[in-house]
């Protein structure tokens, strides 16, 4: 018995299909704006997510400009990956690449740190003594982690032996933090988590690592031997009210304890006791595992430069930029990108992605003798992992409004597998595309 169907194909049909595919491919690349001739001297401080992304964008847009990137670190760290490393899901190498790999040709990389920034004289001096005069300065230094502010703490303590985790410190410390977490969820005990009282990068990260730890303990069958306590610095678990309530609900459902207005002051690794500053005075808490996230501040060279706010965040030193244009309020030839900006929200890589086109627009517009039009609305994104395999893709703006990228498709306050996929696999390629100036 032979059946046949009159679904005949032809070479012409096949060629038509191929042509259609090629046309789709041609549509895929975003159109680039026209190149602008300029002899401006532009110095970019920092070659992290903001600095590298800006260097690539400006190199693609400008003809004849002298672009200099100043950063002493040979390694580039993909910081959104630190949580995955500290959860045992990725090796340290996942977050490490070379700074030079991301910088375009035609851009000069000064492999040194800024020692002095003089916005009056339009000059940066490096630690090595090199003087860099500029017409435009882009501050993208990132921030510094003030580990010394936690009394008794040292990064030498990180690891299973002392039950100390510090996954913000570096990819290697994130691995040591995983070993500490692994042992804690094997043996049980009290796990302390929390965040500092300063502004911080990715405010969701301390919550994520705790929810992941709870999930790992549950998977190992050791949940009833582990106690989880989250110490929030403010009267909430997350700065955005609607997200705070959702996180609180999840913690309640999973029997995770939380305290408000508890700020880590010191650790005593010998006694395994942490001391918190609270409105009622100091409070000691014993621990078997502690995740330490230190206070965060602008690098000293920035704080000494006169670029910081004089009356806000005075103990932290974030620079005084307009919250919409990211242009400095007092020095119009200075812009800020990323964590260094003194704006109410936006210390995440996702925010950097939205900072970049704004600063590019205003800088290029000025070189063309016109006004820039783009503005930053405070967009901040945090794929808040609630357990391995699920996350909430929370995105919000200056006004604490939720700003979902996929409204009606990916619910922001729902624990979803697709949000986990975005965090685990889609985020790094998007981040890399951003560094190349392509996203």
């Amino acid at each position: 018995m032979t059946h046949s169907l009159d679904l005949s194909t032809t070479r012409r049909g096949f060629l038509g299909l191929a042509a259609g595919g090629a046309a789709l491919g041609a549509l895929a690349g975003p159109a680039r704006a026209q190149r602008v001739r300029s002899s401006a001297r532009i110095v970019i401080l920092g070659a992290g997510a903001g600095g590298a992304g800006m260097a690539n964008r400006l190199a693609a847009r400008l003809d004849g400009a002298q672009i200099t990137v100043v950063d002493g670190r040979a390694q580039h760290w993909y910081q959104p990956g630190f949580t995955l490393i500290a959860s045992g899901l990725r090796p340290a190498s996942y977050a490490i690449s070379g700074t030079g790999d991301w910088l375009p040709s035609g851009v000069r990389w000064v492999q040194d740190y800024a020692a002095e920034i003089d916005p009056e004289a339009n000059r940066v001096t490096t630690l090595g003594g090199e003087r860099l005069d500029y017409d435009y300065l882009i501050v993208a230094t990132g921030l510094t982690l003030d580990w010394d502010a936690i009394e008794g703490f040292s990064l030498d303590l990180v690891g299973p032996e002392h039950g100390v985790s510090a996954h913000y410190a570096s990819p290697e410390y994130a691995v040591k933090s995983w070993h500490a977490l692994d042992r804690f969820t094997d043996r049980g005990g009290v796990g302390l988590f929390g965040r500092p009282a300063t502004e911080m990068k990715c405010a969701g990260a301390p919550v994520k690592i705790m929810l992941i730890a709870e999930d790992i303990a549950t998977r190992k069958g050791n949940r009833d031997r582990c106690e989880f306590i989250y110490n929030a610095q403010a009267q909430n678990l997350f700065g955005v009210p609607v997200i705070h309530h959702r996180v609180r609900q999840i913690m309640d459902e999973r029997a995770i304890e939380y305290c408000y207005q508890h700020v880590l002051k010191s650790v005593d690794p010998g006694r395994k006791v942490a001391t918190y500053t609270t409105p009622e005075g100091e409070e000691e808490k014993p621990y078997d595992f502690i995740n330490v996230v230190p206070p965060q501040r602008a690098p000293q060279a920035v704080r000494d430069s006169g670029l910081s706010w004089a009356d806000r965040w005075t103990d932290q030193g974030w620079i005084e930029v307009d919250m919409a244009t990211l242009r400095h309020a007092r020095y119009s030839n200075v812009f800020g990108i990323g964590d260094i900006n003194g704006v109410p929200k936006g210390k995440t890589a996702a925010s950097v992605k939205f900072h970049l086109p704004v600063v590019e627009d205003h800088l290029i517009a000025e070189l063309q003798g016109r006004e820039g039009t783009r503005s930053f609305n405070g967009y901040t994104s945090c794929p808040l992992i609630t357990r391995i395999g699920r996350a909430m893709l929370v995105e919000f703006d200056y006004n604490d409004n939720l700003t979902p990228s996929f409204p009606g498709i990916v619910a922001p306050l729902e624990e979803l597998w697709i949000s986990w996929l975005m965090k685990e696999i889609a985020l790094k390629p998007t981040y890399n595309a951003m560094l190349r100036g392509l996203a």
Partner: protein
Amino acid sequence: MEEFSLRTLLAVFEEMFGAWLFWALVAVAVVFTLAWLYVLIRDRSLSFRKYLVAQISMPFGAVAAVAFVLWVTNSRLRDIGGPIDWLVLLGVAALGAVGLSIVVYVLQSLGRGAPPSQS
């Protein structure tokens, strides 16, 4: 996300599977798709017998694709949360089913050679 291009999508898949495995999978998919088109053009018809056998393989392709994706993404079926998760999972299953059916069809066609020409 502000902009999403084909380049980003390719990078996502490279990240998901590793660059080598991803492009190897793409190469396999392209080879079998071209081979499928080749046998369709060669035979000038779609054989229902081969198509039936190919269809029987579809559930296996669907299950294998879902299991593979869950494995590479450190996920489990219990992680499926909302409707969009089910849609993505069904999409993966559909791709696996169609993919394996094409493979089976091609292998049958190539194995048996061209049918005698029909008038």
